[in-house]
């Protein structure tokens, strides 16, 4: 799960690149990057369950969405509260919901667990979708939490806001990564790993695996709450879509895309997935298919292909299919081609052959 020394340097370099991004990119892309960082936090919090403990949950998005709604519910209409109030409350709400859902669903295993987490996640979705508690199906706007700490407030102008929020998200993501890295090195993390590999053995060793799994589920849910809180802060808007189970499935996809075997995989996966989501927009602006086919005299056909290429779900579905069919170890499992690898001083190829 944890990187090697060289991997840690690569990650640090990646963090530096991310930290410099606002100096290089336009505002639109800074905001997009913030969206990607929030997705990375969600995927990272889910990795504690999926990659570390071996629990595939489809209800994770519910804790994320619940945290975002908590920010909306505690914030008065006119002015934002301090982040020192909203963040703990959002995390607390997400963690409490995770405790309730986890305590029940962890009584089951495998696919049963998956179905139960999905059903309870949808229960939380329907609470906000069907009642007027959080603006119903239309969603609601909220005042952003203020960056204030012990009476000292960090203020920013409207123009500076995207960059400020980007750094707030980046700091939280880095903190979450370090926290999880620390957690996985501890005895607790080792036990979770043992549960993933062989739960019976861990029980035979005397560990109460239910409690460990529940603890992991609650920590994961609370961390998803951090991501949800950041989402509310980023968008200043909540709607039921952020609670729905499609969000959970997307987070699973980010993990698979990035690789199950590492803690940085979900971050890579989230960045790749968010970038991918922009593709139909770019294709829609540039219209490459329409141009190409009209150039070779098939204008009508070109327009159809163009219309298909701009469909987001189609692209997303096809990419998922491609990933599960071709890339079962994710992007993190990608290696340099054999003839380049020795130049990078990589490990001998034989050691990393994919297990059938």
């Amino acid at each position: 799960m944890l990187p090697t020394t060289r991997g840690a340097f690569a990650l640090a370099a990646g963090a530096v690149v991310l930290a410099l991004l606002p100096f290089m990119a336009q505002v639109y892309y800074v905001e997009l990057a913030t969206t990607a960082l929030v997705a990375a936090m969600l995927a990272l919090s889910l990795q504690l369950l999926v990659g570390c403990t071996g629990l595939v949950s489809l209800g994770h998005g519910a804790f994320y969405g619940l945290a975002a709604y908590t920010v909306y519910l505690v914030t008065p209409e006119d002015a934002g509260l301090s982040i020192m109030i909203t963040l703990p409350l959002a995390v607390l709400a997400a963690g409490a919901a995770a405790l309730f859902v986890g305590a029940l669903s962890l009584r089951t295993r495998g696919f049963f667990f998956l179905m139960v987490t999905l059903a309870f996640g949808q229960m939380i979705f329907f609470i906000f979708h069907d009642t007027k508690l959080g603006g119903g199906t239309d969603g609601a706007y909220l005042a952003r939490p203020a960056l204030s700490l012990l009476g000292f407030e960090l203020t920013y102008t409207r123009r500076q806001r995207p960059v400020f929020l980007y750094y707030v998200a980046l700091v939280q993501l880095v903190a979450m990564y370090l926290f999880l890295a620390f957690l996985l090195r501890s005895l607790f993390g080792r036990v979770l790993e043992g549960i993933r590999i062989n739960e019976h053995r861990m029980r035979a060793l005397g560990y109460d695996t239910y409690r460990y799994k529940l603890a992991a589920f609650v920590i994961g849910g609370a961390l998803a709450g951090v991501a949800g809180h950041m989402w509310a802060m980023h968008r200043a808007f909540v709607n039921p879509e952020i609670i729905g189970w499609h969000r959970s499935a997307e987070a699973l996809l980010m993990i698979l895309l990035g690789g199950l075997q590492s803690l940085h995989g979900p971050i890579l996966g989230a960045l790749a997935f968010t970038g991918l989501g922009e593709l139909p927009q770019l294709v829609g602006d540039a219209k490459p298919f329409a141009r190409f086919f009209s150039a070779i005299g098939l204008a009508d056909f070109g327009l159809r292909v163009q219309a298909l290429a701009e469909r987001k779900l189609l692209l997303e579905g096809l990419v998922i299919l491609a990933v599960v069919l071709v890339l079962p170890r994710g992007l993190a499992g990608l290696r340099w081609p054999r003839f380049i690898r020795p130049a990078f001083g990589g490990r001998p190829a034989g050691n990393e052959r994919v297990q059938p």
Partner: protein
Amino acid sequence: MSFAGFLAQLLNGVQYGLLLFLIASGLTLIFGVMGIINLAHGSLFMVGAYVAFLTTRAVGSAWLALPLALIGGAVFGALLERGLFRHFYRRDHLDQVLLTFALILLFEETRSILVGNDFYSVPVPAAFDFSVPITAGFSYSAYRFAVIAICLALAVVLFLWIERTRMGAIIRAAAEKPEMVDVIGIDARRVHMTVFAVGTALALTAGALAAPLYSVYPGMGDGFLIISFVVVVIGGLGSISGAFWSALLIGLVDTLGKAYVPAVAGLAIYVLMAGVLIWRPTGLFGQRG
């Protein structure tokens, strides 16, 4: 509320429960035999509903929709098994989840390309477009009676098929001990394809029957998928009779709840599920252990 009103809600609940059974039985069969959870099962239901909508629009009556959904569903299911699912039986849960999630997105987008994103109502077949008088002041929709009858007939056929035929015996054996089925020389691939075809046909049929009752709309499969999961969890995974009784239970609780205590009805089935999980985590009809 009056007694007649109560009776109507009771019948509505039974009819809803039986529709849920058609969806949930396919889910539970496919899981029981192949060990795969099909998140796209709700989308198959949606496909059935749109088949009914499109045939009604093209032919002018929904008569053709039912056989089309049943036979077309079986063929479609067999093709899906052959082309995709077969390669995923031994894969990780996560891969199966994402495969079927990808199918949901592709089904939804295909629907959006072909039909668009509007709500459409589907007319009730003309032959059933009347009410059956039951008492002096109360009559009930003939179409809903027809749905109840068709669902019950399909349920009986399904039970007989599982309990009384050779294929059914193999399916029960495969659900119990898949290795044994291989060892005694039965072609497991044919069994898998059959089970998938039957499950898909049932989901499409449920969709075709539901279209005149609930209209057709984007994402309609999602809600039914989640409720079917609740049905399967309460009934016990892999158990057909469990799915039947728990589908009826959920149908009645949900319908009566929405009629009499609408404020909390949305939560009722989840509370029921939580109760079952505390009391018997393997489901009411699942095996203990």
